């Protein structure tokens, strides 16, 4: 197992009255695998993945859990150890590529700088490496692009630069956090194709954080669904799309499946995370919620429903049968 995260919890806000961030999340990624982490915005998927790099936004705190990478425990690393680890063992590609690049420096220099932070290399060697990476991620005319500033690049191009930076030290794992959400459809497909191609070429695993199940279906091997800071479903991709077993997954699917079945949709907007309801966090919005099954009172565990498919729903059987099985093969 390349990455193993166990019971990871993150809190936001003040210490006395923390906001619920991410709670007891466990997942794993093996070598060469492409894993999708999906959820609505605010479900905690990005926070969980950033935490793997020891980073949090807006004063979040990692309060509990374990993150093991190639068997080594990461939580508890010193600042310097983290610095050496980030970028060299795990690369990150973020959502808004142009904001993630330093606006006043040439992109080639930025790639080289990361490379030189982790590897002993002369400036000339680092420049060579940068050009090589630009070629690798599918940028035509790398010499010219090397000297460009971020604001001169299109979104797709900037995203490729980030991929080049993330890959500069050939990390074992690449985390891509909504890598294409700001891009147009045709560009999105190109970037994702290239992302899949290069991770295969360098032999990395890929964690693809997204809200788009289309991306998961087309690129991932396994999938974790997050909701209200928890993992609510995990499965391999075939089994998941054949018979999803959690209402949150159904809700994500309903939009993209041209299904207008009101009965399967979640009601209302995601809840304020300061006060979570008792029982299943989703029950106020869930069309399947049911007093008899304990949805309002008992927080559901991750039920194992066979072949590595798990669902955090008391009524997973009903949910599985709700969608007409479109892919009888699985």
């Amino acid at each position, binding site marked *: 197992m390349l990455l193993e995260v166990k019971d990871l919890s993150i809190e936001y806000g003040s210490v006395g009255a923390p906001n619920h961030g991410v709670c007891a999340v466990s997942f794993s990624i093996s070598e060469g695998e492409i894993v999708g982490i999906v959820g609505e915005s605010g479900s905690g998927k990005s926070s969980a993945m950033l935490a793997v790099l020891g*980073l949090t936004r807006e004063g979040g705190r990692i309060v509990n859990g374990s993150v093991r990478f190639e068997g080594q425990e990461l939580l508890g690393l010193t600042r310097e150890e983290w*610095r050496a*680890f*980030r*970028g*060299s063992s795990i690369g990150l590609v973020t959502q808004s590529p142009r904001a993630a690049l330093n606006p006043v420096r040439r992109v080639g220099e930025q790639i080289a700088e*990361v490379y030189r932070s*982790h590897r002993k290399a002369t400036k000339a060697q680092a420049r060579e490496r940068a050009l090589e990476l630009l070629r690798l991620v599918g940028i035509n005319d790398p010499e010219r692009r090397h000297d460009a500033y971020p604001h001169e690049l299109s979104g797709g191009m900037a995203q490729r630069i980030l991929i080049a930076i993330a890959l500069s030290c050939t990390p074992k794992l690449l985390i891509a956090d909504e890598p294409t959400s700001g891009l147009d459809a045709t560009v999105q497909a190109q970037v994702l194709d290239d992302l899949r191609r290069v991770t295969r070429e360098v032999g990395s695993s890929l964690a693809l954080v997204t809200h788009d199940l289309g991306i998961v279906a087309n690129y991932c091997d396994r999938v974790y669904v997050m909701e209200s800071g928890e993992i609510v479903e995990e499965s391999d991709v075939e089994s998941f799309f054949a018979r999803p077993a959690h209402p949150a997954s159904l809700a994500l699917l309903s939009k993209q499946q041209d299904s207008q079945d009101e009965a399967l949709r979640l009601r209302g907007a995601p809840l304020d995370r300061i006060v979570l309801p008792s029982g299943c966090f989703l029950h106020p919005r869930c069309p399947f919620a049911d007093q008899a099954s304990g949805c309002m009172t008992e927080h559901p565990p991750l039920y194992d429903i066979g072949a590595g498919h798990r669902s955090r729903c008391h009524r997973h059987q009903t949910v599985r049968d709700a969608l007409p099985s479109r892919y009888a093969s699985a």
Partner: protein
Amino acid sequence: MKTLILKRLCFVLPQLVLVAAVVFVLLRILPVDPVDRIAGQFATPELRAQVEEELGLDRSLGTQLGSYLAGIFQGDFGTSWLTSDPVREEMVERFPLTLQLITLAFFVALAIAIPLGRASAAREGSRVDKAAQSYSLFAGAQPDFWWGLMFLFLFFFKAGILPAPLGVLTPGRQAPDEITHFILLDALIRGQLGVFVDALRHLALPVITLAFVLTGPFTKMTRQSVLSVSKSEYMLYADATGLSERAMKRSLLRNGLAPVLTLAAIFFGFLLGGAALIETVFTLNGLGLYAVQRMLVVDFPAVQGVVVWMTAFALLMYLIMDLLYAALDPRVRYSE
């Protein structure tokens, strides 16, 4: 870059002409009559006419303005009505003192404000941060001339460690022969260490006073700018790529200081005139004091000269800062 400089220079000249024209016309339409003041209120009409002719006031306003502007382009600012000396020479004599005062104050202020602003930003929300913010709010809203007096009271009268506010040198001490007109530089070049120290001691309080007031806005700007950079997506990303500590610090400085420099340029221009107050308090014979004194005696050529001179200098500062900014931030280069 070259086109940027050329473009800016194209704006500078008309601006300068405009400013010269405005101040020239303003002085002549204001209800103060120089002939009255120079010839005396009870002068005979003949004397008045003579004075008028001497001052060139008998010609039409347009002609006067034209010849004044033409003179400026040849570096001739006219002759003072008070002393009959060329205004340019009088200004050259006084300007270096003002410039030394302001430049020193800026260096001191930046040397305090940048580390303070950075420390404040680095510990956002802490006691240090709150104290720094309260301080910058306070310092930025203070009358410098009053603080000058306070410092005088403390350091001259009470503690007696700094000299009386009577010019830049202790009376009786000989100024070094002029080379650059900057007394500190001249003293160093001539090797007159005693003069150098004496001048520095005389400049200490005015510099501290100005620097104190300047630290307010500078600290605030540094803090804001560093904070917005350190919270930016690209710094988070740099952190996530394990960029070395040194490289991170370099980014923080380079990206964070550009706005501070621009602010500094604006204040520099503003302070050229504003220094008149401090120069008055410490009896420093600089350009600001010169302007006030000459306005009080209706010496129009001198006043005009100061305004044009200061404007030109401020525009030059803006130009330099703009170029510096463009060098620091490529986005500016392209939007021009």
